[in-house]
């Protein structure tokens, strides 16, 4: 589904603006696309109000379970909604509708229904917001058959994947990362620029170790690769991009080159994305592995408010470097 841009034009775009632009372009392209969310205007969407009105931009009262279900109902009957759940910790309120309705309706009805819907949620963490605002819930939903889940880490991937998600006829859960909002890079201006769901991306080639990066860990993973380069260790960094379905092919190809894997994931260690990637790589790449698989994750503890306690929790460049060295 990835298409080379028709024109070669690119322009600098932040991660946050990539989200807004992707939505705007898809709403212009297809009148069935609508946006549902709380305070759409405040949290990045104000530019949309220049082009669209309240018919397709629905500012909702605080009622996550039902406005999510409402989006699903609209998806079942001719629209292609984007439901913005704002802060990822709020996604639990919507979980019943996402899991028991969106993910299951097509299958349970033997294919009579399709659910072309996108759920967006942004992880906020490491900013002293305490436990109820700071979750990274990707693993929770990975266990639900029927969902596609993406976690883009660059502006180009954010734009391309969100557009691909909107055009996909199935329910897609898009996890954004607030710490990446101001990251800037050249992004194609082609309105049909898409990034395929289900394809990981080698962000940096290498020979000695594979570093698999999940979601917002990418900058730390790349920084770690730089540090390692300075010590003569060549690290290949794979940005997973799609969590479900997993791009096993790309992962195993890299493992074939390096034989060693460190997985970096900012979700809590128990049952993390890293756990699943680790299981798949060891099951299918056991003969190629030359050392145990290492996971660099957030420990299984509630997120504390005080920066003194919170800051050390998330994967850091130092911890990734140390993990790599421990298996060389």
């Amino acid at each position: 589904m990835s298409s080379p841009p028709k024109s070669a034009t690119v322009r600098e775009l932040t991660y946050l603006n990539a989200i807004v632009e992707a939505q705007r372009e898809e709403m212009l392209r297809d009148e069935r696309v609508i946006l549902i969310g709380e305070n759409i205007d405040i949290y990045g969407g104000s530019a949309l109000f220049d082009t669209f009105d309240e018919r397709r931009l629905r500012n909702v009262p605080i009622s996550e379970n039902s406005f999510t279900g409402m989006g699903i109902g609209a998806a079942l009957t001719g629209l292609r909604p984007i439901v913005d759940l704002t802060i990822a910790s709020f996604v639990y309120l919507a979980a019943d509708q996402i899991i028991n309705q969106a993910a299951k309706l097509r299958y349970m009805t033997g294919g009579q229904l399709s659910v072309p819907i996108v759920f967006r949620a942004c992880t906020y963490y490491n900013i002293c917001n305490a436990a109820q605002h700071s979750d990274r819930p990707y693993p929770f939903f990975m266990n639900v058959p029927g969902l596609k889940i993406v976690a883009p880490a660059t502006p180009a991937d954010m734009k391309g994947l969100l557009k691909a998600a909107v055009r996909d006829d199935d329910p897609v859960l898009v996890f954004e990362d607030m710490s990446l909002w101001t990251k800037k890079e050249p992004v194609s201006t082609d309105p049909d620029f898409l990034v395929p769901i289900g394809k990981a991306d080698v962000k940096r080639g290498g020979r000695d170790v594979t570093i698999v990066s999940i979601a917002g860990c990418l900058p730390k993973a790349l920084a770690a690769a730089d540090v390692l380069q300075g010590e003569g260790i060549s690290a290949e960094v794979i940005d997973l991009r799609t969590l479900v379905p997993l791009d096993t092919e790309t992962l195993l190809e890299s493992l074939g080159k390096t034989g060693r894997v460190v997985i970096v994931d900012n979700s809590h260690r128990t049952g993390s994305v890293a756990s699943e990637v680790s299981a798949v790589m060891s099951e299918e790449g056991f003969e190629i592995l030359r050392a145990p698989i290492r996971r660099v994750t957030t420990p299984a503890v509630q997120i504390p408010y005080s920066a003194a306690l919170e800051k050390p929790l998330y994967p850091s460049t130092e911890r990734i470097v140390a993990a790599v060295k421990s298996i060389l």
Partner: protein
Amino acid sequence: MTPSQAPQLTRELSLQAYRRMVRIRRFEEEAMRRAMAGEFSGMHSSSGQEAAIVGACLALRDDDYITGTHRSHGHPIGKGADLKPLMAELYGKATGICKGRGGSMHLADRKVGIIGESAIVGGGIPLATGAALSIQVRGTDQVSLCFFGDGAANQGTFGESLNLAAIWKLPVIFFCENNLYAISTPVAKSHGQPDIALRAAGFGLPGVIVDGQDLAEVYAATAVAVGRARKGGGPTLIEAKTYRFEEHCLGLQVPIAYRTPQELERYKSQRDPLVLYRKEMLGRGIAEVEIGGIERDVAAEVADAVTFARQSPLPDPDEVYDYLFSNPIHYPPEPAP
């Protein structure tokens, strides 16, 4: 609303109404017999609730949407679905309406407008609200009708969805089949205030109570609500006080006597919606022989549906991943178990 102002059923529609009610009753009775004989497992019967279901369905067009509940059989039948794929679905056959993947609690027939029969109580209420949102965004004059029970009225989705529908005047009819008990819990023991329709005012929409055993009354009230919705007048909450003749689900043993045998007997003998409507039709001058003809037709239809179901093949286990996605990626997703 005086009787003369209320929308009336034409003769044709009356016959159609009776036919559909009888279909529901005979389908449910036959399905129960088959389930008790072990031919498939379990079901939640709608016997006793036919007038509430059919009266509402007949006020809708073919292109209107419905959502329903785990007590799902009556809804597609009430909306005019073919019985064969429904029965085949109960048997878990490949020819079932959901290809054997949904079963008794999820008899969703999209061709007659059903977009979900949710087994999560209250789960269909936001979906119906969303269908109404879709209608409003697309600018058509369709409506969406949401069936749910007395139990669902306490679920958070009820409060949230009624509010959403009210703020945007969405064309949705919230239709409560209040059969007085959620499994074995009576409304008085679960509702702080016993009249569900009275909750509507708190959200800013009208609420109406109807006798759910009286088809004409249900039809009239629903037709009024549907008319309002089509003209952009917004949602309505209809509470149909009805009754179910069977237990919550087949075979359920309830150790406490939550309802008296006398109450059950009274409904079966004096408040049976089929008997009541039959009488009404005779009173309108419809001949006994015509009514009997409908009853014979339906009996044959149900028997045919059972034959069809029993003779249909089971789904192929190798096809278990079919219908997971509209657009599968890396398909099939995993090695076969």
